[in-house]
């Protein structure tokens, strides 16, 4: 069975707002960059195109139909995955593994600034009979989850705030990041408490941007480039949509997604075997929760490791060297692709001033946000 490689990447954004481009032009520009990077002609060299988009976030019924032209996919073989970009990666991986397809293009984007009522859409994802009638800002779910997590693990508010400080600082070195900043722990802790104990500066702000990648089978990849990044394993899981029965402290969905990916990638001690990890940090405390579920450390330990600087860019296991979603901005269904982009750039040695020396194995992780319990994990390496 062929190995699966990422042979081209293109990114536009991420910016708080990209007013000069329509969503189609945004996708077009990222696609041109990815095809140039891979050295392919989309009109001839691509077997399947995959776009990852959710109709409500696009403002279209059946958004799929509005995709082909800006990707060079008119009258070609295209479909939409209604989920995070990393679910698209899993799909592309499987397509190439069948041996029937050699070249797959993967796209995900966010034109968050076009959505005037984003929080209403998030609220619309809550159970219509049991939860929605209570009303309010749907991120109260995150406040409740953080509170239980802190209670069960003795993780402190300072340790959570440190995630925001670290990630926003990392983002200063990332040209694809919208919200890089030098902030202090006190600034985070003194920012408004929107959903106790969750603070304003611990919540990622949406951003506009697009990531396109070209994936190829071993044979094609080796002809195209000598800087292939290999997909060693992918895993995904959904726990339950029910707020009432889910685990409020451990992210079971991430644990099971990680175990699936680690098994395939033959990773046994993630802390030792990974050189860095790009972990979902939509809210600062989520980075800690997800680190534990990804087996980067024991349950309840992530806060301490963060406080001691072990997850900083020059630490033992850098977490979110890209700046994460807190620093790059929340790219909606492209948020997994933001992580994947950083992994590819780091493993190629193209991460500029934020380059982690000698990085060989990296992890990308996504969570589909409030109120979902869906996680996706991918392990990548520059060694086949």
């Amino acid at each position, binding site marked *: 069975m062929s190995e699966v490689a990422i042979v081209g990447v293109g990114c536009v954004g991420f910016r*708080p*707002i990209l*007013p000069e481009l329509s969503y189609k032009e945004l996708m077009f520009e990222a696609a041109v960059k990815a095809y140039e990077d891979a050295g392919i002609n989309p009109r001839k060299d691509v077997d399947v195109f995959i776009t990852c988009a959710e109709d409500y976030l696009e*403002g279209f*019924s059946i958004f799929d139909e509005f995709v082909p032209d800006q990707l060079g996919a008119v009258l070609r073989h295209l479909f939409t995955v209604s989920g995070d970009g990393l679910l698209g990666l899993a799909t592309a991986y499987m397509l190439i593994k069948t041996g029937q397809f050699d070249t797959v293009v993967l796209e995900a984007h966010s034109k968050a*600034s*076009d959505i*005037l009522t984003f*929080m*209403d859409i998030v*609220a619309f994802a809550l159970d*219509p*009979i*049991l*939860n929605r*009638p*209570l*009303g*309010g*800002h*749907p991120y*109260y779910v995150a*406040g*409740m*989850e*953080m*509170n*239980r997590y802190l*209670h069960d693990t003795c993780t402190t508010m300072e340790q959570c705030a440190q995630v925001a400080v670290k990630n926003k600082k990392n983002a200063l070195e990332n040209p694809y990041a*919208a*919200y*890089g*900043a*030098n*902030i202090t722990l006190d600034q985070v802790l003194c920012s*408004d*408490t*929107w*959903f*106790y*104990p*969750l603070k304003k*500066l611990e919540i990622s*702000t*949406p951003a506009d941007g697009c990531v396109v990648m070209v994936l190829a089978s071993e044979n094609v990849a080796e002809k195209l480039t000598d800087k292939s990044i290999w997909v060693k394993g992918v895993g995904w899981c959904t726990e339950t949509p*029910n*707020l*009432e*029965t889910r685990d*409020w402290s451990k992210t079971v969905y991430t644990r099971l997604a990680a175990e699936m990916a680690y098994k395939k990638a033959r990773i046994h001690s993630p802390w030792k075997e990974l050189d860095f990890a790009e972990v979902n940090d939509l809210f600062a405390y989520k980075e800690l929760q997800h680190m534990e579920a990804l087996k980067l450390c024991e349950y309840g330990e992530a806060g301490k490791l963060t406080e001691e600087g072990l997850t900083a860019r020059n630490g033992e296991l850098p977490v979110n060297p890209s700046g994460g979603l807190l620093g790059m901005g929340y790219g909606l269904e492209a948020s997994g692709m933001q992580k994947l982009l950083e992994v590819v750039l780091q493993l190629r040695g193209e991460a500029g001033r934020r380059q982690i020396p000698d990085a060989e194995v990296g992890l990308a992780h996504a969570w589909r946000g409030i109120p979902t319990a869906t996680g996706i994990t991918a392990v990548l390496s520059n060694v086949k």
Partner: protein
Amino acid sequence: MSLEKITNPLHVRHWLGDMEADYIYTLGVAGEHFLEEIKENGRIMGAKCPRCNITYVPPKMYCEKCFAKLEKWVDIGKKGVVHTFTVATIDVDGKKLEKPVIYALIKFEGACGGLIHKIGETKPEKIKIGMKVEAVFKPSFERKASINDIAYFKPAE
């Protein structure tokens, strides 16, 4: 570097559109029983799986573990425990609320699951994880077979 950036798309040239989408959500067998009992009798019901010995709150028509159809209804009482809570200070549009709203997940003894609801008759700083609370129902003439027929939960002895 400023922390606040311009994110208002209305400042650029655009076309305004909206999608009007209205739905009804059928309650179903278990949902109807659950909300009818709240409305008519002020009782919170669960559904019990005799095989797995699990009582689901809110009730389900089927067991998540063994997939059996559930037909046994159990009154689980009005008192529960705060499993977790938060205090929301902004509304869905990001505006500061005049009075913060306390949301909580309330779990009931012997039941799997619980109810997400609001906490009333107390102050945010008095709420603790693990504290006992009890349901306060709206007067029967105001009830509509909705989760909001429970006005809120209040601290209990």
